[in-house]
Every structure is written in structure tokens, then in C-alpha cells.
């Protein structure tokens, strides 16, 4: 949920703007660091140039303050003294500009090399499929029985190369988690690859960054980078099917889930619900947010999202369910067992 | 205004020009540049889309029987190319006659050009029907139909312009302004013929290479 940003970080954010979990200048991966360093180099070089240009213009403004009532008659360019010196100055400045740009270009090439996809046999392969308006993630493995899916929330181990394969079956989306890397578009017909290696554990916020329709604004994404051991624990749990419901309310809730329109789109492994039109829900209760980062994952928000999805995300493909309060309560009980 | 006591008298300059010195000539050239750019972009799209296909031209699963791949027929294509090249003759005749302000020759040249244009338009319709695909089969088909269709539009427009010129030449005699217009349209026709030659090669010959 959004309260992942601790109060300390929030205060620091207000002060510096740099200690955030969703900022290109608060990098947490090898690639984002390279980009962030490049950013600051460009910033200082170009910033100084800007200040010099503006200062020169202001000097022109203030070095001749008097408004002339009698406007002098101009002279042809070739009879103005010092004109060739002026030309020389401009030529030198142009030369200096070329050198500076070349320097920036070289800088850029070095940073690009860090971002180039590398062939790392130990990489973790994830396939991200963008949909209107949620993220489907599949964790690949050499052993097909170990492949599993999740939605809207990605866990990755720190210090290991992650290779994302990006696809889209509908419109163009763009995967962007600023603290971890630049963005990459998910273009129908053109699968893409994004490679990154997180270096700092944390929860990082991202959003779809290519306009994809009505709810583009609410297509958020969380990436949690954790230690290798924590990740292994999570991975094992994620591979498991859903636990069977225990109490009567939970069982009744499961019945409601399986007998209503929910199963048309949502899958829960271990039950007969197997549709992949919408996000799979096997471990819904472990996620920080629902509706692709739109709401924190609480009971009340789940209730709102299920009953009135068009209030939360107008235009979303999820129909309202019109459940009675008792049924809704039982359904929520069931959903909250899906850890 | 400045006080001068000298002026430049231009009253003896000609009042109309029949070649590149006229304004309409330049307007026509620019229009042809614009249209050439459109065709060039379509050709670029054709080559770009080619990267999405394993076989080129793509197979035709919508036909019965389905075709694995069939090249557009070169003889069919030539039924338009050759008449186009032949149609240059009456157009050049009208062009030269207009330069010399020979009204009768212009009338005949235009008449034959209009006939040629009509025949070529009909042949182009036939050519399109003989293509082994419809415009809505796939991306390749859409682009090829658009190339042929756009060119057909130019044939029709140029012929319609010739009709206007012909009507004027019949009703009135040929003055310098309208002779210039005939010449400008002739240049347009040369372009219509000329642009089709590379397009023909790309559509009909290219896939076989």
C-alpha cells in the first residue's frame, strides 16, 4: 500500500525530493544509477551554459539603460568597426559548443553501454504483458512446472539480473518504474526486452507511461526488490495454489466467487477458475494494492472495487456485481484468505 | 515615401510566359513534388511492412482455393504501362503546338490525350480487378491498392484538366495564358506517366527479385 513510504522518507522527500521510491534521481538499480549520474552531468554542464547565456543577455539589457529619444541612423555592416572580431568570437563560441556537445555525446555513449541488454545465464526471466489497464506477469523457469503468474505487483531479488520480455495484445503501454530504470514500450507486434539489476531493497512505484485509453492514469505497478532469501520464500509461496477456505463464511465466499461473473475473468489456481482475461487472484491478499495500484489493499477498498468498479476506475472492464451485503462479506472473507 | 526623380519603365515586358518563367509552372512543380513525396512515403511503408512477412507477397488464405503466394501478373501490369507511355505522344504534340500557339493542333492533341486518359483509367480499373488480392486482405494488399488507386486518381484528375483545356480551346481560340495552361498540364501528365515506371517496377518486378 502507499504507506510503504515511511514518515521519515516522506519528510526527506519534502526536503530533498530525492529520497523517494519513484524518482529518476533516486536510483536503486545499476541502470537507474547510470542514468541518474548522466542526468546530473548533463544538468550541471547545460545549467551553466544556460546561466551564461541569460547573463549575457541581461548584460546587453542593462549596459545601455538610456532609452534614446533620437534614434541613431544605422550603418552598413561592413563599415562597423570591430565586426570581424565579433565574427571571430562567434566562431570560437560555436567551436566550444561543438566540443561540449561531443563531450556530452561520449558521456551518453558510456551510459548507454550500461543499459545495453547483456546475455546473463543466471538472469531471472519475467514476461510482462500489458493490458488495458493492468499488468500481467509470468515468472519463467527452465522447469515448466515452476512457471507461475501474478498481476500488478512484481517481486525481484536484489543483485540479480532481471530480464523483462514486454508484450502487449491490445494497445501500446509502457513499463516505467523510475527508480529502477527508464521506460520501455510494450508495442503489439514488437516484443521488447528490458534488463535491470536492483541494488537496494525497497518497494518501487511505477505507472504505465504511454497513453492507453480511459484508465491510463490508474495503471500502476509496484516492484518489490528484496534479498535473495526473502525472494526465494516469496517465490515458493507464489508457486503454491490457493489455500482451501476453512470457515463456513469463507467457503460460502468461494461458492459466490465460483458461481458469479468473477470466474469469467479471474483465475485462482487450485480451483476451477482459470480465465486469464483479468488479473489472477491466487495470492491477492498478499498484494499491497488493488486495481493496478489504484487503491490500497484493504477490506473496505476491496468491497468498493467489487461493488462499484466504475466509481473507482470509470471505463474499466470489470462489471459491478450487485451482491447483497452478507454475500459480499463472505466473499471478502474468502478473498482475504488468498495469501 | 522617399522622393525620387527616376523610375523604371517596364511597360515593354511580355505579359505572359509559356514556360518555367510563369508562376503557374512553379505551382505545378511544387504540387508534383508534394505528390512524389506521398508516393515515396508509400513505397517506404511498403518496404517497412515487408519486414513483417515471411513470404512476399503474402499468401492469400481468403481466396478459394487458397494461394500460397502469387506475384502480381507482369503482363497485366504492362497493359497499363504501355498505353501510358504511348499516351505521351499526343500530349507532347499538344505541348509543342501550344508553344507555337497553334490552336487546331492543340485541340487534336488534347482530344487524343483525353481519349488516352479515359482508356488508361479503364485499363487501370481492370488491372486492379486482376490483382490476386483485395485491399482488405492484409497490409501488403492495402498498400499496393493504395499505390495503384492514388495513381489512378492522378490519371483521372489530369484527364479532367485536359477536358477543361480542350473545352476552352474549342470555344475560344488559344491565347498565351491558356496555351501556358496546356503546357503546364502536359508537364503534369509527363509526371503521371514517369512516376508510374518506378512504381510498376516496385510492385510487379520487385517481389520476384
Amino acid at each position: 500500500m502507499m504507506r510503504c513510504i515511511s514518515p521519515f522518507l516522506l519528510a526527506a522527500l519534502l526536503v530533498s525530493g530525492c529520497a523517494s521510491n519513484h524518482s529518476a534521481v533516486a536510483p536503486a538499480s545499476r541502470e537507474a544509477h547510470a542514468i541518474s549520474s548522466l542526468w546530473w552531468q548533463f544538468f550541471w554542464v547545460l545549467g551553466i551554459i544556460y546561466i551564461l547565456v541569460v547573463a549575457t543577455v541581461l548584460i546587453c539589457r542593462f549596459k545601455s539603460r538610456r532609452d534614446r529619444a533620437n534614434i541613431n541612423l544605422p550603418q552598413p555592416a561592413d563599415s562597423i568597426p570591430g565586426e570581424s572580431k565579433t565574427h571571430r568570437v562567434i566562431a570560437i563560441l560555436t567551436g566550444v559548443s561543438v566540443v561540449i556537445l561531443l563531450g556530452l555525446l561520449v558521456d551518453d555513449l558510456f551510459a548507454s553501454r550500461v543499459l545495453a541488454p547483456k546475455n546473463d545465464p543466471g538472469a531471472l526471466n519475467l514476461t510482462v504483458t500489458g493490458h488495458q489497464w493492468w499488468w500481467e506477469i509470468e515468472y519463467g523457469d527452465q522447469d515448466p512446472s515452476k512457471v507461475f503468474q501474478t498481476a500488478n505487483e512484481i517481486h525481484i531479488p536484489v543483485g540479480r539480473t532481471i530480464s523483462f520480455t514486454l508484450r502487449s495484445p491490445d494497445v501500446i503501454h509502457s513499463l516505467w518504474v523510475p527508480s529502477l530504470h527508464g521506460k520501455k514500450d510494450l508495442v503489439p507486434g514488437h516484443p521488447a526486452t528490458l534488463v535491470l539489476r536492483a541494488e537496494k531493497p525497497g518497494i518501487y512505484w511505477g505507472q504505465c507511461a504511454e497513453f492507453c485509453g480511459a484508465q491510463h492514469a490508474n495503471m500502476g505497478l509496484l516492484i518489490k526488490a528484496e534479498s535473495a532469501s526473502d525472494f526465494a520464500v516469496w517465490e515458493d509461496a507464489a508457486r503454491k495454489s490457493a489455500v482451501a477456505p476453512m470457515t463456513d463464511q469463507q467457503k460460502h465466499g468461494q461458492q459466490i466467487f465460483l458461481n458469479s461473473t468473477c470466474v469469467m475473468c479471474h483465475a485462482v489456481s487450485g480451483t476451477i477458475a482459470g480465465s486469464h482475461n483479468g488479473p489472477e487472484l491466487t495470492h491477492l491478499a498478499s498484494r499491497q494494492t488493488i486495481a493496478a495500484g489504484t487503491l490500497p489493499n484493504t477490506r473496505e477498498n476491496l468491497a468498493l472495487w467489487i461493488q462499484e468498479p466504475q466509481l473507482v476506475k470509470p471505463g474499466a472492464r470489470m462489471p459491478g456485481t450487485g451482491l447483497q451485503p452478507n454475500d459480499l462479506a463472505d466473499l471478502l472473507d474468502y478473498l482475504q484468505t488468498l495469501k | 515615401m522617399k522622393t525620387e526623380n527616376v523610375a523604371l519603365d517596364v511597360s515593354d515586358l511580355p505579359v505572359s510566359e509559356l514556360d518555367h518563367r510563369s508562376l503557374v509552372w512553379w505551382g505545378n512543380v511544387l504540387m508534383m513534388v508534394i505528390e512524389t513525396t506521398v508516393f515515396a512515403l508509400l513505397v517506404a511503408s511498403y518496404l517497412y511492412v515487408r519486414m513483417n512477412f515471411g513470404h512476399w507477397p503474402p499468401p492469400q488464405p481468403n481466396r478459394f482455393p487458397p494461394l500460397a503466394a502469387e506475384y502480381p501478373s507482369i503482363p497485366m501490369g504492362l497493359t497499363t504501362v504501355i498505353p501510358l507511355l504511348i499516351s505521351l505522344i499526343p500530349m507532347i504534340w499538344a505541348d509543342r503546338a501550344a508553344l507555337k500557339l497553334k490552336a487546331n493542333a492543340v485541340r487534336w492533341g488534347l482530344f487524343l490525350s483525353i481519349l488516352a486518359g479515359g482508356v488508361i483509367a479503364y485499363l487501370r480499373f481492370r488491372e486492379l480487378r486482376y490483382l490476386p488480392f483485395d485491399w482488405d486482405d492484409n497490409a501488403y494488399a492495402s498498400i499496393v491498392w493504395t499505390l495503384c488507386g492514388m495513381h489512378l486518381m492522378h490519371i483521372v484528375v489530369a484527364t479532367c484538366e485536359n477536358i477543361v483545356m480542350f473545352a476552352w480551346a474549342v470555344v475560344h481560340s488559344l491565347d498565351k495564358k491558356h496555351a501556358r495552361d496546356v503546357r503546364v498540364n502536359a508537364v503534369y501528365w509527363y509526371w503521371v506517366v514517369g512516376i508510374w515506371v518506378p512504381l510498376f517496377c516496385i510492385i510487379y518486378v520487385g517481389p520476384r527479385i
Partner: protein
Amino acid sequence: MRLVEAPDQTRRSVDEKNLHHVWSRVEGVIGWLCTTNHKEISLRYIITAFGFFCAAGVLALLMRLQLSVPNNRLIGPDLYNQLFTVHGSTMMFLFAVPVMEGVGLYLVPLMIGTRNVAFPRLNALGYYVYLAGGLVLYGGLFCNIGPDTGWFSYVPLAGPDFSPGKRVDFWAQMITFTEISALIAGIEIIVTVFKQRAPGMSIDRIPIYVWAVLITAFMVIFAMPAVMLVSTMLAMDRMSHVATHFFNVAEGGDALLYQHLFWFFGHPEVYIIFIPATGFVSTIIGTFSRRPLVGHSALVLSLIATAFIGFGLWVHHMFATPVPILGRSFFTGASMLIAIPSGVQIFCWIATLWTGKPVWKSPLLFVLGFFAIFVLGGLTGVMLASVPLDLQVHDTFFVVAHFHYVLIGGAVFPLFGAFHYWFPKWTGRMLDEGIAKLTFWLMFIGFNLTFFPMHQLGLEGMPRRVYTYHANLGWNGLNMAASIGAGVMGIAVLCFLYNVLKSRRSGVIAGNNPWQAPTLEWATTSPPQPYNFLYQPTVNSMHPLWFDRPNQPFVVGLKTDRREVLTTTLLHAVPEHIHELPEDSCWPILLTVVISGTLLGVIFNPWPFVIGMIPMYIVLFAWFWRDIDLKHLGRAK
């Protein structure tokens, strides 16, 4: 062709009376609709474009209102998506390019010393078609079927599968209208500048503004066809009985093909907007520095270089898509390279101010604003040229900040400078200097308050085109600041409007040359007569009103009982022949009605395209055949 004695006062009065009779338009509504006077048509372009500017500004204010606080429920996603689409489309297609064309079509014939553009009726057609296109777009918006897929309307989102209905088709047809108009304006400028310059105005004496507009016109010729093609391809994909597959991935079409074709137009488009503005900056700096521009040739070559290189940059809009890495490096290089000619221009301008004796009137103040704002935008552009940096800030508010800095700083500020500079020529009265200064400061402060925070927002993760955002992402304060700034900009525009309306009535009378400027438009009355100059001038230098000798001859011998202009050769402007221009005509507006009906019909069905050819042919036939004599329809002046 020979030198004769200048006409005496009697002769001049007779000529003046005849020219008035021949060049004035017929009175009444019909005369107004059928005019072919380039100045009247240009003022219509400018006023219409300004109207669209205000409309798009209102849309922007609504957007900023919605974004001022997080999770705002003022405007829902559907309306918001229409707002930003129509805002962007209006600014790019209905304001920026037409206003630059309009000002160019007004000034170029005057600056080169001729009486009208090369094809006066075509010019009128260009304006009416532009107006129709704008009305089509806003008609859609007001019926709540405005386009909602962004001003560049990417596929597959804008394709038939994901944007059902007619919204995107309104957008695609608006493009057809405005591109026809832009191509017409481009043709006019090129042919007029090539063939109708004053005798003696050889290539090296063409004013820098005319160069800028000429180069822009060439860019238009090569760039506009791309957008016309791609919007037509999109429309054909979407049309139910046509259903082509240019962009349908399932049938071998390509979503990236759309982007390549669009941006092949899209990048030159921004230079089409910017280069005329550099013409404004050059002119204003030259006049008010009281000296010729430093490095005139360098400035012209920089413009030409910018135009060429500008066609080789387009993939930098696509760095985040899966295009080959090597290709991206080429476009990084080209995108950085284009900073060099822009830099050369900046150095020349500053050198002119430094070595001149500047007079700080309001037009020059707006040019100062241009420096402060455009240079910042240009430098963030260098950042965007780098692929790694672009991958972070592409499609975020950083890019929104960048392009507003370069477009508002690089085009709108010079444009306002140009308004203040040429308003006296267009209307005969000066704008109020005090209100002008207030306008400038409100605009400068409002602009920076609106757009500077957006750099930070982009770096902090805020993507573009979002109708709302979460409260706990740290974006609240910056968004509120931006929204307040937008309000201040709105007030600035109102200030300017007040200045215009007030000064039209009671501004100081300007006279021919209130700024003591060097170019030919200042050699005639303010506003100019319908025939521009009593006698067409000849020139002997690039700054005729500063450096020509006092007895520079002017042109006589043209008939004054019909509309005649002199044409000259391309390179050396030697008089060549006399060209007769047509009278005012009703065909342009009639043709516009036919074209509009056809294109509007095509939104709904493909058949109007074929059926519409018939009335189009009839009107064009009549156009070429003869003009209806309006003087017998209306009362002659």
C-alpha cells in the same frame, strides 16, 4: 525596360485613383467573402488562429483545474482525454502553423515589394479550408465525440478495435483540412518569393524574415504529405467498408509504421513553427539594435541547416519503442547536432544586441523572454537527445515542460513580440506600451510558474496524459503551483486582448515607419492600401529604408486598369515579365463548401468521396473558366 522621369503629381493622383478602383474589393458581404487581398486573408488567419489559441487555452485551464489537486473529481477520464487531445491538436494544427502562415502571407508580399501573392484565389481557399477544419474538430468536441487519443493519436489505440465510433475520424479529417491549407500557404510563399521580388532584390538581399518563411514553406512541402498520408491511412483502416490493414498487427500491419510516418512529419512540424519565429526574433533584434544583424549569412545558413537536419531526427520521439539500438545512436547524434545551428543563431543575436545601441521597446522585451525561455527548452532538448535520459523522462511531465518551453518560448513569445511590432502596420495604431509590459511580465511569470515545476514532476515519476494522480506520491504542491501559473497566463492573454481592442480605437497613430525599421513594408502607409505600393519599389541593399540611395527608382509602366504585378528572375531579381492577377472571386468559398461537405461525409461513409468529386469538378471547371464579375453583383467602391 528603361529609366524614365518619375511621374508628376497629377499622374500620381490618377494612378492612385485607378489602383484604388481596381484593387479594392466590392462592398458588402459578398465582397467580404470573395476577397483575394492577401492582407485581409492574412488578418483572418491571424484572428482565427488567435481564437483557436484562446479556445485551446481554456481547455488547458480546465485540465490544470482538474490536476490542481490529487484524486480530483471535477473532470472524468473521458472528458479529460478529449480535452488534452483537442488542446494539443488545436495548438499544433489550428494555431501555431496557421498563425505563422498568416503573418507570413501578410508580410512577405510587402517585404519583397509586390502587390499580392502569386495565386490570390488559392490563398483565399487555403484560409476557408483551414477554418472549416477547425470547425469540424470543435463540432466534434461540443457533441462529446471529440477525439480522445492524444494529438498524435497512436495506433492501435486509435484504430478501429480500440476507438470505436467517429471520434478519431474527426481528428483525421481535421488533419486533411489543415494540411491542404498549409500546403497551399507553402506553395504561395515559395512561388511569390521566387518570382515576385522587387527588381534588385537578389538572393543576398532578401530580408531574413523572408528567408525564414521561405525555408519553412519548403519544410511544409516535404513534411505535410506524411501526416496527410498517415491520417488517411488511419481513416481507411477505420472505415467500415474499406477496412485496410496498414496498422493492423494481425494482418502484417505495423503499429510502429504509424509512428515513423507521423513523426517524419511531427519533428519538422515543430521547426515549421519555430523557424518563422526566428525570423521574428531576427527582424526585431535587427530593427531595435539599430544595426544590421551580425552574421546575416550565418543566420541564413543556420536556418537551412536546421531545416535539413530537422528531417533526420524523428526517431527521437520513439526511443522507448523497440527500434534497433544502432539506429537510435544515429538519431541521438543528429538531435544533438541540430543544437549547433540554433546556437549559432543565438550567438549572432546576442552579438547584435551587444554591439548595437538597443532601444528597449515592447517587441524587444518579448524577445528577451524568448531568450530566457527558449534556451532552457533547447537545453532540455539536448538532454532528451540522449537515449538513457530520454528513457526516464519520455512521456512524462518533463517532456511536457520541454516542449512548452521551446514552443511557447520559441514561438509564442516571438509571436507576441511580432504582434506588438507589426500591429502599427496592420492597423495604423500603436499598442499601449504600458499594458504591453504588463502582458509580458504576467506571461513570463505565469509561464514559468506553470511549466518549470513540471520538470520536477517528470523526474519524480508523473506520466503524461493522466486525468488524476494519487495523493501520496509527492506531486501535490507542484501541480497546484502549475495550475496557479496557468491562471496567471490566462490573465496575461486577457491583458493583451484588452490592449488590442483599446488600441484599435484610441491607440497613437503610427504613421508609415514608427520604429524606423529597414524593410520595405515600412515604406508604405499603415495600414497599407489594397495595392500595397503606389509604384512597386526597386532595391539596392538588404536594408532598403536604411541604406538605399535617396533616388532609388520605382517601377512604372504596369497597367492600372487591371491587376498587374511585375515578376523577376530567381537569383538576381531582374524584371522578367508582367503577370496579371485575377479579380476577387466567389469560387474559393464555394469550393470550400464542396470540399467540407465531401470530407465531412467521408467521416461516416466512403461514398461521399466519389460523389463529391462531381461538384468539385464543376466548381474547379468554373474557377479555371472565368470569374463571375462581382462588381456587377455588388456595388463597386
